């Protein structure tokens, strides 16, 4: 195999990993605080929509004057919108599951369903169709990879990988991280020490929304130039699998998402079912996660307080 293809595969892997990494690191904050977040899939969609729609609306007046204009700040506002909407949607999940103590799985599922329905309504209002937003011209910038010619990535790809050490530091080396982990492992103990379990959990869940929203923004205005309904394509669920596979640890998550990204990249090459049926490759992340959960490939233990509502 020649170097061109190897290089293409490697960069394909990094691009496939990026949205997974954002969402999985987001899920880490939520689950470390004790709240299951299967709403990642839906939040990715909300983030993707917010980013594309905001960017399109911001650049539209400039494009009317000059159809080839590039409005540098438009995608950054789109990115901000994705983070804000992601936090708000996650906030709904937090409100329902923390304040009203509803089942976290049901609340998350409801958000995933909203992620299919609400964008359709917004698109119908703005673009007179229910599945696709108008393409944008101003997308987030590409940055060359250490000056290697022909190799450059969207700025969000770098952000995703840089977030790994940041998240590690925050979760394991700061008082905030200690408290977050405490309310996830043993909320009673944390409470008896005067930590507000409710506030920590709100923060954890909303942070997960911000990060999953970034993952969505990468899909719509980083990698592509528009929002397409259901474009998350199950990445939220694969991110959850990566979170479990990576044992709720940022470095584990990095390894797991890279592995799943590699599956996706090589599947492209294996495509056409020449070596392995694509269905097998596509289900590998889930199969591996099941094996890990069952304890065959090292044991993965969830935070102890996860999934349980906290009664003050």
């Amino acid at each position, binding site marked *: 195999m*020649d170097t*061109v*293809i190897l*290089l*293409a*595969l490697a*960069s*394909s892997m990094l*691009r*496939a990993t990026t*949205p997974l990494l954002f969402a999985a690191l987001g899920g880490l904050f939520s689950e470390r605080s004790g709240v299951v977040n299967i709403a990642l899939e839906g939040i990715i969609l909300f983030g993707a929509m917010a980013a594309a729609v905001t960017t399109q609306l911001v650049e539209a007046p400039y494009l009317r004057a000059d*159809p*080839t204009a590039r409005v540098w700040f438009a995608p950054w506002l789109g990115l901000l919108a994705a983070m804000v909407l992601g936090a708000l949607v996650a906030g709904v999940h937090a409100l329902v599951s923390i304040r009203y103590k509803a089942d976290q799985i049901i609340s998350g599922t409801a958000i995933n369903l909203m992620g299919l329905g609400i964008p*359709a309504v917004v698109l*119908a209002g703005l*673009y*007179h*169709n*229910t*599945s*696709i937003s108008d393409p944008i011209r101003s997308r987030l910038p590409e940055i060359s990879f250490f000056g290697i010619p022909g190799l450059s990535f969207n700025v969000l790809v770098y952000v995703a990988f840089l977030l790994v050490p940041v998240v590690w530091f925050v979760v394991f080396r700061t008082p905030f991280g200690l408290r977050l982990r405490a309310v996830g492992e043993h909320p009673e103990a944390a409470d008896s020490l005067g930590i507000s379990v409710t506030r920590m959990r709100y923060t954890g869940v909303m942070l997960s929304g911000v990060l999953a929203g970034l993952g969505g923004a990468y*899909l719509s205005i980083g*990698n*592509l*130039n*528009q929002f*397409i*309904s*259901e*474009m998350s*394509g*199950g990445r939220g669920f694969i991110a959850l699998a990566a979170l479990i596979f990576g044992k709720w640890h940022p470095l584990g998550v990095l390894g797991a998402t890279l592995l799943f990204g590699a599956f*996706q*990249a090589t599947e*492209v*090459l294996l*495509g*056409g079912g020449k070596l392995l049926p*694509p*269905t097998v490759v*596509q289900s590998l992340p889930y199969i591996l996660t099941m094996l890990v959960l069952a304890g065959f490939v090292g044991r993965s233990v969830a935070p102890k307080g996860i999934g349980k509502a906290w009664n003050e």
Partner: protein
Amino acid sequence: MRKLLILIAALLIAGATAQDYVFGIVYDAGGKFDRSFNESTWTGVQRAQQDLQADGYEVEVIEFEGTPDTAAEGQRRIALEGAELLIAPGFLQADAITSVAQEFPRTSFVIIDAVSDGDNVRSVLFKEQEGSFLVGFVAGSLTRTGVVGFVGGMDVPLIRAFDLGYQEGVKAACADCTIISNYVGVTPDAWNDPARAKELASTQNAQNADIIFAAAGASGNGVIDFVNEKQCFVPSGATRATPIDAQLDNIAKPAGYDAKCGGNAKPIFFIGVDSNQNPLGDTDANAATLNFGLTSMLKRVDNAAYDSVMDVVNGEFTGGILNLGLAEGGVDYALDEYNSALIPADLVEKVNSVKQQIIDGEIVVTDYRQQ
């Protein structure tokens, strides 16, 4: 109360009879303006409505935008409102049409891309392989690397038919060309995953493909975006001279192209599908500069819808299966102001003669679904 009801009923009947014709369309997914199938149906009916109105008829079109689950309900409602003809674009409505058509034997039904039973049902199918053969022929004639790509959406026989027709077309123009074909997935997610389609396109390009045909629904936007963004590449290995070289010399390039694609870099192109997607390859809002959409495989759903309406009006509507190919104007390739500079006149002539040969049966394009 009763009087009121009678009054309302009388008004409704009066309202209904004021129209000469009532037609209905039921959309199952994607909405009316999906820039594809549904919109094509609507365009055809719209055209028929305008033509009929020009002739002095009162025409009403009732539409229902639903989901695959609610489509049957929408069909019943429109049939109840007295529509003469109901058009259902999309194979997801096939079962619903079969049962609703039984309940309303005097209404005519049209289902597109699937077969439903009933004497009053017309099932419209397309010979996608014939249109794909033409765009394949164009790709095979113009590729400089001798490698072209195909990106399919969900791996189903319908898309395999596009794939096979395309492959045969490429081979007809260039016997030793290679075709790389990939599918986005095996579940309906595959229609909405542009990110994955984009990776497929990028890997095909790394394998030297310089023209990529996308038949992948909304995922195809990923392929189009890849081509528009990358615009050119330096082929690895030998290239061959094709008529496009001479054409390219005479086309103005979009701003920034020359800086990006100097030296040995060659432009890359996509081929669109279903509707005319050529304009999507226009990166600088100027049709005269280099366009990255080489051509599109057209599926004339609008013509099928228009003809159905006119058949009902002329009392010539018949049930059964209609298989629309090149001969019937059901499929074609797109040639417009965006790509006419890319395709030399003698190639247009060749493609037209290939088209005629297919119509005359001298070239038989294999239908994957009937192998």
